[in-house]
């Protein structure tokens, strides 16, 4: 017992059997095994069932707006690179409302880990389709079945040349833990798309369904090969699990930020050089 990230909350608001429970447990273990402490960790989330996770974690918490966690997380890391920044939120939050931040944070390559609890549905708002819902799935809004193509976060992230792209099924806890650890260790934008069943609203993609429709990538897959990665990314008959792509050669956002070139300390510890400011003002004698 007694994981350092256990947080004393009266009650967890998820449905019994929800995939979020397993993910929650696995993440705590992964962090502990990496030797990371709650004091150095910020859990960032949006709004949704998944996004409640930080409520149940010891650590710093920024439980912000629906759709916006990646923007916030990027800024947190950029202003204090000493923190470990982990985003937990739903497929609706990260790929739907927050789709632009997803694209554009990948391009910035902030050193954060993004775990999408992908239950292929809007859980908290009670069962509408999410961007990742399978075609044909019927919901109270999509009464004739979903007609949009499902968003493929893995293919999109490979296309955007993300630093670390992976998929897990939370039912497979050991594998999930390994990937969480690899993602957190990776320097750069790490995506873990985590299949996580919603027992209340997704009757299509159940625990059993995920078991049957996924497989674990073996060693023959070379995640540093972008073409291979894309090949795996677009497989949908059975979804491959594991590290699908990685590109470790990329500079992270904060490394690319000049002010950290020689001084790594977080902004809150720095002091404005008042003399420099005064000199600078004096120097504005010309436009």
């Amino acid at each position: 017992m007694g994981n350092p990230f256990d947080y004393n909350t009266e009650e967890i608001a998820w449905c019994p059997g929800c995939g979020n429970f397993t993910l929650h447990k696995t993440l705590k273990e992964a962090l502990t095994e990496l030797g990371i402490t709650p004091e150095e960790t910020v859990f960032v989330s949006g709004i949704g069932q998944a996004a409640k996770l930080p409520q149940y974690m010891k650590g710093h918490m920024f439980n912000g707006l629906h759709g916006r966690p990646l923007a916030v997380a990027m800024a947190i890391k950029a202003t204090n690179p000493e923190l470990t920044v982990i985003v937990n939120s739903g497929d609706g939050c990260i790929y739907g409302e927050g789709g632009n931040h997803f694209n554009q944070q990948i391009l910035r390559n902030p050193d954060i880990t993004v775990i999408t609890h992908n239950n292929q549905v809007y859980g908290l708002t009670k069962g509408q389709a999410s961007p990742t819902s399978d075609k044909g799935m019927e919901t109270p809004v999509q009464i004739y079945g979903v007609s949009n193509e499902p968003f493929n976060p893995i293919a999109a992230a490979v296309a955007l040349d993300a630093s670390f792209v992976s998929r897990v099924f939370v039912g497979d806890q050991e594998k999930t833990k390994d990937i969480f650890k690899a993602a957190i260790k990776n320097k750069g934008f790490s995506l873990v798309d985590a299949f996580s069943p919603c027992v209340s609203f997704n009757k299509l993609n159940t625990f059993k369904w995920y078991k049957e429709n996924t497989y674990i990538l073996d060693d023959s897959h070379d995640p540093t090969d972008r073409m291979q990665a894309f090949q795996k990314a677009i497989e949908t008959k059975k979804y491959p699990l594991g590290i699908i792509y990685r590109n470790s050669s990329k500079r992270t956002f904060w490394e690319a930020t000049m002010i950290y070139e020689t001084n790594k300390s977080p902004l809150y510890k720095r002091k404005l050089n008042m003399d420099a400011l005064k000199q600078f003002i004096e120097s504005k004698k010309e436009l």
Partner: protein
Amino acid sequence: MDDLSIVLVGAAGQGIQTVEQFMVNLFKMTGYNVYATKEYMSRVRGGMNSTELRIGSGKKRVRAYVDRIDLLIPLHKNAIEHVQHRLSKSTIILTDPDLINQREYPDYQCIAVPFTKIKKEIGSKFMNVFAVGVLSGIFRIPEKSALQFIKQRFETKGELILNKNINSFNRGHKKGETLKDIIPEMEKEPNVINEILLDGNQSVGLGAIAGGCNFISAYPMSPSTGTLVFLAQHSRKFDIVVDQAEDEIAAINKAIGAWYTGARGIASTSGGGFSLMSEGLSLTGMIESPLVIHLAQRPGPATGLPTRTAQGDLNLALNAGHGEFHRIIFAPGSIEQAFFLTQHAFNLADALQIPVFILTDQYLVDSYYNVPPEDMNIIGIRHAFIETDSEYKRYVYTKNGISPRGVPGFGEGFVRIDSDEHDEWGHITEDLRGVREKMIDKRIYKKGLTISQIEPPIPLEPFGSEEFDTLVICWGSSYLIVKEALEELNDSQIAGVHFSQVFPVPKNTKSVLHEAKNLLLIEGNATGQFLKLLKLYTDIDIKKNRVYLKSNGEPFSVEEVISFIRSKIKGGK
């Protein structure tokens, strides 16, 4: 003559803004008080733009827009038409015969200057430097120092370009010298030489730096882009993290994320971008995050007139964001105020954990003048975050409603914030009677109390005549225009009052306004937004016919303000 107004008109791409920049510098280094502002179209080439340069004689500072044109330099065949309503019999026009047929303008004093000749002889890019030369000659700017300045500016462009510029300048200067007498000589003021030059965008940027701002994520949008550019350009020197945001929603959320770690972020944008920030603003209300917002106004709705000026987003700044929470709105009236209030904004936002606005507009951010460096009042950075202990509760109930703000990693505590309604620990709650009501108190009533106790950093006090029965109210960027109008009117019965803090309304507003029998109000929108604010919070209800509203995208001019005031004091007090 006390002061002169020189106006250049030309198409985008003709380099008018270079002339503006050069001349502002040259005038100042010669010892003239100088001012410049521009109006331009939302395009990179073509159209018709203009710049007004004013210089004051001796100690006279010039800091406001006038309609009057003393000397006009039209660099395009359509140029005169563009400003014709501003010309008078005494306007001198330097007309290029190849562009403009003098005979078409018999009402003005036209003097032939062949600007476009340079085009053929040296190249079209050099016409503007030729114009700089002409003006330098006319205004007796010492040739040596002007040449040195030109050289310095073109140093990096290669010898060929440099020489062509020098050549163009020299030819212009020579021509200009022959025209010396068309303009009475202006007295110089040597102290001016040591003063500094800033435009509004730079002064907001500089105020931000002096206020400890070290994070900006912004999406370009006229007229706010200048602040982003300024901060980016000095980011390394002043430890600023700069991110060009993917959109304005990201920008505000990132700024809030930055404050969360103890950095100081600014959101800088214009109306459309700010509309998109409305949800993020509401987030600051719920999580009690400090934030500074620079909202540089332009005419709306929607895309509107991207490069023009307006004071039409006051209502929005006041009411943006769902739910109820507090805010402070500053509207600087000058370069110095922009600098000063932006610093204050950072300290106040931090102290009160609320959003603070700097409401500027295109007119203010695009206007320059010289300022004595000692008028740039540095107030110092007062960080309000604390080192946490292990029992730390982010939203602990306190007497004044303000819970000390911790930042992650500083101290033993956990900093937990939530956009849902939450308890003292930041944990989501549905305890309506127990927790929600207390948190509302915290966010609204108690903070309201705190805010209403804050004196505006720039006290509300009348200027102009000390005894008065007419008081001209203005806010934001029209301050110096109204000030000059009152100076011109020089009527012992008229004073002005400027609100640089528009919300909350300063406590002494009623007493100041009640001193006058006749209240006039000037603002740059069509519906009287500040008028309503005054009515709501001070019960002072100024009649519509005592209000001068202008919202066509132009700034107010000194002349317009004068004639408005005249019409109201003559007509029926």
